Structure formats: structure tokens, C-alpha cells
């Protein structure tokens, strides 16, 4: 199981599998799914919400309820305690980064992103200290 970010999740849902991404089952952590859903439902996504509004109902369903053979959404409960420990260790870390680190730690000590811009300095630094490999697959 490989933990991916919103970019890779949206790419594989759309059938655009990056060359560099290993052939394995993929999972999206709940807080990253939440970010996609907030944008999809127009809560706080701004321009992105308007763009996602162009998706068909089936396309929206592909984001809301990913096809389990393509992408799974991780249950956040088993990760919460470790995420809280990491949030305390790295002050100022929100759930997004803390859960990313906990998920990366639990699933093969690796995290996969679709662009460097979605990694962030704090996550990159903490992942390095924790021995979690951060990969970017953008082709």
C-alpha cells in the first residue's frame, strides 16, 4: 500500500498513472481527502471549486467515493495517536502534516506526491528526521 497526495489521487482516478509511481495499491489519507472534498463541495476552494463544478455527477462521485480498486481512503483512527505525538514533537503542525507523517511511517516509510509544491518544508524536514522517504512523481 502506497500513500499518495491529492495530485496523485486525482491522476489515478482519472486513469493517468505516473511513470515513476510503483505498481501497488494506493491510499489517500483522510485529511487530504477532506481537502479535496472541501474544494469539491464549494466550501473553501474558491476558483478550484468552480473548476471542479464542471465534473459530471459520476466524476464527482469518483472524488467523493473513490473506486476501491483504484484508490482507498485511509481510516484516520489508527493513525491519530501517532499523529498527535508527531504534532507535539513538531510544534505548529496541523492534522494534514501530522497525519501524513503517521501514514508514511505506517505504510512502508514512504510518501508519494504529485508535485514538490505540495510537500512543504516542514513535512520534508520532519520526514527526513523520521526516515520517511518523500517521492515526487510528476511525469
Amino acid at each position: 500500500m502506497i500513500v499518495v497526495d491529492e495530485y496523485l489521487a486525482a491522476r489515478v482516478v482519472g486513469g493517468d498513472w505516473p511513470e515513476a509511481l510503483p505498481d501497488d495499491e494506493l491510499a489517500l489519507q483522510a485529511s487530504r481527502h477532506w481537502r479535496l472534498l472541501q474544494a469539491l463541495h464549494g466550501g473553501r476552494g474558491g476558483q478550484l471549486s468552480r473548476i471542479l463544478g464542471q465534473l459530471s455527477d459520476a466524476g464527482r462521485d469518483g472524488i467523493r467515493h473513490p473506486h476501491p480498486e483504484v484508490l482507498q481512503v485511509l481510516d484516520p483512527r489508527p493513525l491519530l495517536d501517532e499523529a498527535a505525538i508527531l504534532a507535539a514533537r513538531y510544534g505548529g503542525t496541523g492534522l494534514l502534516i501530522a497525519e501524513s507523517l503517521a501514514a508514511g511511517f505506517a505504510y512502508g516509510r514512504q510518501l508519494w506526491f504529485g508535485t514538490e509544491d505540495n510537500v512543504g518544508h516542514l513535512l520534508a524536514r520532519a520526514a527526513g528526521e523520521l526516515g520517511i522517504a518523500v517521492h515526487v512523481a510528476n511525469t
Partner: protein
Amino acid sequence: MHGVDLPEGRMVGMSIGEELLAERRRRRRAGDPRLSESDRELLRRLTTGDLVGEFQAGLDAVSDADPLLGGGDNDD
């Protein structure tokens, strides 16, 4: 055992388990079958095309608006 044709015309035996794994791999890589071509094109533009900036800005906006999610002292 079942056979799989290779370009050279040779055959390679595959067990039922291997065939099932290969079929799961094919379906996984094909994406969600419910999506239309226009849906796929929109997701492609958002993740690797001309709308990447809007995609990142939208994700960042969600985090920025929610301190529990984004935290109070980081660049994500």
C-alpha cells in the same frame, strides 16, 4: 495454467492467481470506470496541465482556513 501471447508468438504460462493480479493491476491503472473522457481531461489539466496553479491554490486555501488542518505555524 493459462497462456499469454507474447509479441514474438511465444506463450508464457500464468497461474489463475497471476492472471487475477494482472487484471487487478490493469483495472487499477485504468482509473475509475465511472468517469467520462471530459472528467478525465479536467483532472489531467488540474494535476499536470494548465490548471495546476488553481489546484494548489484551492488545496492551500482549505488548509489556511482551518487551523486544525493546516496548523498555525507552517508553510502548508
